[in-house]
């Protein structure tokens, strides 16, 4: 019995001494952190995606608290509501959030862009890109090995096993920019979300000349400039045989879609009866 008592008393004694030491140490070496940082951090989505350009949500919170105004500080995941919360906590005004979306600029599925060789190396786009141009005749298009799928923290992006192209779930996409950075071919871009997510974009990134590219892909942009001439709002430009639609100038009139000879310009989320089917 005695031995138990001694053990318990000894442990209690050590515990008490340690508690006293810890108390004084914590007072002496206390690091002051602005309590606002903690408050802001709680208001943030806590996914640490890095989409804001800062290392995680804590880094963003520090930046918000230390910045003079919230200009250019945007949490893309939380969006408008979160930024207004943060602004309330800090007593500053939130900068306007323009909602964006990740968009894949390649429509070359297995049917439209046939394979001419077979890659059996490491299943990573970055490594395949380092080795050669890809399994099809188009050296600009999607490799389909899914580096974007791996980096997506929101389960918003998946490689469609039929088309071998990434598909983005617009509900889940937070435009955190991770897939944009991961894609070695720079196929994915962030676009203005637009009204009711209606969007028109050039579904191709190939910069080859028209006759070369049509040998390998039937839905490629051939740089014919028809869409540029059709556009009344100066939203389309063609450089290096590739059209680009400025999503901030585009008024969604859809005239360019119908003139494109290769169906490289696609419209999505428009009411079904009006639109040519996207899958077609």
């Amino acid at each position: 019995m005695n031995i138990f008592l001694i053990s318990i008393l000894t442990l209690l004694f050590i515990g008490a001494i340690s508690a006293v030491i810890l108390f004084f140490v914590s007072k002496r070496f206390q690091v002051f952190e602005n309590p606002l940082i903690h408050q802001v951090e709680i208001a943030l989505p806590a996914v640490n995606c890095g989409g804001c350009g800062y290392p995680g949500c804590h880094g963003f919170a520090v930046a918000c608290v230390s910045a003079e105004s919230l200009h250019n500080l945007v949490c893309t995941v939380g969006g408008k509501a979160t930024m207004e919360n943060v602004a309330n906590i800090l007593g500053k005004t939130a900068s306007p959030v323009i909602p964006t979306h990740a968009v894949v600029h390649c429509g070359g599925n297995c049917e439209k862009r046939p394979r001419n060789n077979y890659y059996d190396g490491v299943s990573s786009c970055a490594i395949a890109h380092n080795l050669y141009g890809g399994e099809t005749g188009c050296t600009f298009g999607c490799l389909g090995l899914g580096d974007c799928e791996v980096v997506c923290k929101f389960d918003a992006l998946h490689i469609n096993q039929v088309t071998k192209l990434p598909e983005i779930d617009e509900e889940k996409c937070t435009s955190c920019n991770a897939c944009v950075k991961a894609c070695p071919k720079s196929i994915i871009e962030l676009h203005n979300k637009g009204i009711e997510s209606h969007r028109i974009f050039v579904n191709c990134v190939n910069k080859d000349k028209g006759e070369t590219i049509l040998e390998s892909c039937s839905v490629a942009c051939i740089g014919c400039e028809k869409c540029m001439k059709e556009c009344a709002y100066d939203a389309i430009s063609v450089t290096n045989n590739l059209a680009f639609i400025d999503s901030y100038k585009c008024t969604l009139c859809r005239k360019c879609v119908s003139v494109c000879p290769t169906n490289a310009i696609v419209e999505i989320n428009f009411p079904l009866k009006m639109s040519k089917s996207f899958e077609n």
Partner: protein
Amino acid sequence: MGGIHPKTYKFSAGKQIQAAPIPNQAIIPLGHYLGGPSLPIVKAGDRVKVGQMIGQASGFVSANVHSSVSGIVNKLDSHIDASGYNVPSVFIDVQGDEWLESIDRSIEIGRECTLTSTEIIKKISESGIVGLGGATFPTHVKLTPPPGKKAEILIINAVECEPYLTCDHQLMLEKTEEILIGITILMKAIQVEKAIVGIENNKKDAIDLMKKYAKSFAGIEIMSLQVQYPQGGEKQLIDASIGRQIPSGSLPIEVGAVVQNVGTTFAVYEAVQKNKPLIERVITITGKSVKNHSNYRARLGTPLANIVDHAGGIPEDTGKIVAGGPMMGRALVSLEVTVAKGTSGVLFIQTPEAARKKMQNCIRCTKCVVACPMGLEPYLLMSQSERSMWTEMEKDRIMDCIECGCCSFCCPSNRPLLDHLRYGKSSVGKIIRNRQTKK
């Protein structure tokens, strides 16, 4: 240090170099693996002769490109090359075979060279000569040492350590004297008194022949080397021949050595003595199932399909076609790829050998560490590359990697070490270049 001993499979050794058929349309690439692409100086509809310049060097580290055929320029467009990407190329519809008058086409050997060092280097630069070993680094850049550095010795790389390939071996047997004259020209260009020709001892006939002829040339030593891959690497060859090691991140000139490939030497001879720019090269067509193993002298821009057809077509059990040797060559996407300055051969690999084996876990056997000729730790670098640890990779000297593939070759778990190392090297290289431009 390091190295491996793959089976050599030199089937095409001793096969006479034959002229490859001139194609109906030559597609001459203007891009190079290293250095800036050349700028085209012809336009569609122009008539060109063999040896006429069609692409101008776009900077110091770039090379001129000359027409290898005579005919009319069809168009300037991009065409796929051995890298698997489209590069700007000149398409020429062949008409006849009309050479520039300035080119000396006689078979007489020109022995006298009266040009000075700078004149020789200028001539080499004008003739568009690049390293024919495969890296296609412009030769005139190598021959111009940076200020404050002085070359002491010229080393000729006649090792041909890649299995299967025999183009350099055959060239040495057929053009022995020309090569030795080329070496004296190069010695004059960099003002050195001594040259060593390194040849692996599986090419006994070439060693004997070179030794016999070398007696009448001052300062040229023929050195027989043990068979080992990758002895044809610049740094490995310098170590093997003169026992000097190059510090990490430095060039061979740091230890006073200039290394040139033996094929380049022959091209230098032709450029200086015969006024002939680099318009053709020797390539080997080989593989286990190939019936006619052959060495061809092919004009640049000839589609590989033409040469392969001439050699008897693609064997039925081919799983992969490689441009270059099996260790460092690149798998081809199509045979529409044309002969470029760096194409040393076409190799047909049988289907069972071509497939990658299933990758297993690293068992820490350190075979890759033993095999690495640069003293790196490939297993560690691979796991760093998988985790994007670029800073650590730079510290572990990824930039010293010569991409020889010894690590992947000897890995018992079939791990794709080389793929990850290459990716890491290119990523770290980009970071370093960005840092330098910021400064």
